[in-house]
Every structure is written in structure tokens, then in C-alpha cells.
């Protein structure tokens, strides 16, 4: 089955969703991310959804769940890059993302995470798929 790659940069995990996810792929990403947070003791998670041209209630719930699970595991999650049309639609649909941190783009998302969790003492960047 397809998987969405998770990149690790020090104590941050970065996910860029570039495909229109079917439901099982979205669920698998939620599980993979939660597992990775615990495995590498990540402090922050950045989920880039700028390529998504829709977010329905299923994907919205996946984003909310992932944020909640990250928090329980001692990490902060930020969803970045939501397109304006997607944001308008989500609000009208009634999806509640009040527990989810959001930022305009990856740069602002990283900044937000750094402000919340601080900077790592050393940089042990490695990329894993």
C-alpha cells in the first residue's frame, strides 16, 4: 500500500501531502506519524497541506486527531499552507479545527514550532522515508 513519506529534521517531523488521499491513506499517515513521534521523541510535527485542493470531514478529523495524539506524546503539531478556498469550505462544512495550530506556510510553521518548543542543542538532521 502507498505511504506518505515522513521527513525527520532534528526533533521535527515534516510531512508534505502531495496526493489526493483516499481514506485509508489518510488513516495510515495518522498512524505512521503517531508512531514516528514516539519512536524518535519528536518535539514538533509540521504537516504541509498546501497541495491539497480539498479537505473534507475525514481528512479534517485526521488532522485534528494527529494534533491531539502529538500533544499526548509531548509534541506540538502545526498544519501549514491551507488554501483559502479549502479554509472557507471547511468552516461551512462544520469541521472544528480549534485544537489544531495552523500557519500560513512552512517557514512560519517552523517559526511557530521553534517558539513553542525551543531550539535543539545539536543538529542531527537525517531524512527517512
Amino acid at each position, binding site marked *: 500500500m502507498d505511504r506518505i513519506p515522513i521527513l525527520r529534521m532534528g526533533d521535527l517531523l515534516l510531512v508534505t501531502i502531495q496526493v489526493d488521499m*483516499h481514506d485509508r491513506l489518510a488513516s495510515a499517515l495518522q498512524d505512521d506519524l503517531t508512531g514516528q513521534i514516539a519512536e524518535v521523541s519528536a518535539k514538533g510535527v509540521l504537516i504541509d497541506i498546501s497541495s491539497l*485542493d*480539498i479537505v473534507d*470531514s475525514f481528512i479534517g478529523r485526521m488532522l485534528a486527531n494527529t494534533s491531539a495524539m502529538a500533544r499526548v506524546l509531548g509534541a506540538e503539531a502545526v498544519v501549514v499552507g491551507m488554501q483559502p478556498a479549502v479554509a472557507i469550505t471547511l468552516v461551512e*462544512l462544520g469541521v472544528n479545527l480549534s485544537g489544531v495550530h495552523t500557519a500560513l506556510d512552512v517557514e512560519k510553521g517552523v517559526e511557530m514550532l521553534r517558539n513553542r518548543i525551543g531550539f535543539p542543542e545539536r543538529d542531527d538532521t537525517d531524512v527517512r522515508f
Partner: protein
Amino acid sequence: MSDFETILVAEAKDIVTVRHAVRRQAVKIKLSLVDQTKIVTAASELARNMFVYAGGGEVTLELLEKDVRHGLRAHFVDKGPGIPDIDLALRDGFTTGSGMGLGLGGAKRLVNEFSIESASGKGTHVMITRWR
């Protein structure tokens, strides 16, 4: 106008196929980006409902022309158990499944026209329309 397209929804990934087909037709009649996003999202919710509660069904897309207006209409037809209480099913937060209970009510808010017919044991027909 005789522009019809039918998509069979039998497995979870067919919901993605429905989204793409609705997007294609919405672009064809030049809906604004926000309106495209709304009807694609509504269709995604309704296709998922059909898959989860009725085990699948059929989506038919239809392009409309009325006076000078263009519209996109989508029919979601299933032969599932039907919805016993439609008013209750349309209420936000009500679900008999594992979702958030936003599918029907949420989809209704995203379109210009919404109708639903359901017969116990026979199935459900939901129709949505978005006008340009």
C-alpha cells in the same frame, strides 16, 4: 443538455475518483474556485456516506443550463438500508457510524440545492446542485 457521467462507488478509493470527476465538470462550467471546492467537498462527503452506510452506489453527474445560468448536479443513488429519520440524519453531530456526523448536513450547506429521498430497505437518493 445530454452531458452525463456515472461513477460506480464500490471501494474507498472510488471516493477520490468521484472528487476528481466532480472537479473536472465544475471546471468545465467555470465555477469559481471556492464553489468548485464546495461542491467537490460535498460530493466527497456524500460518496463516503454511500460507501460506509450502503456499501456503495452510483454517482451521476449532470450539467445543467437554465436561461443563461450553468449548473452542476450530482445524484448519489444507493440500494442500502435507507435513512429512517432524515431530519435527525441532517443534524450536525448525529451519526450511527464512526464519523463526525457532518456528512449530510455539511454537504447541504455547501450547495445551492439539496434534496434527499429515502425508503427503508430500498435505498437513498441524494441530489445536490451548484449554480454558477
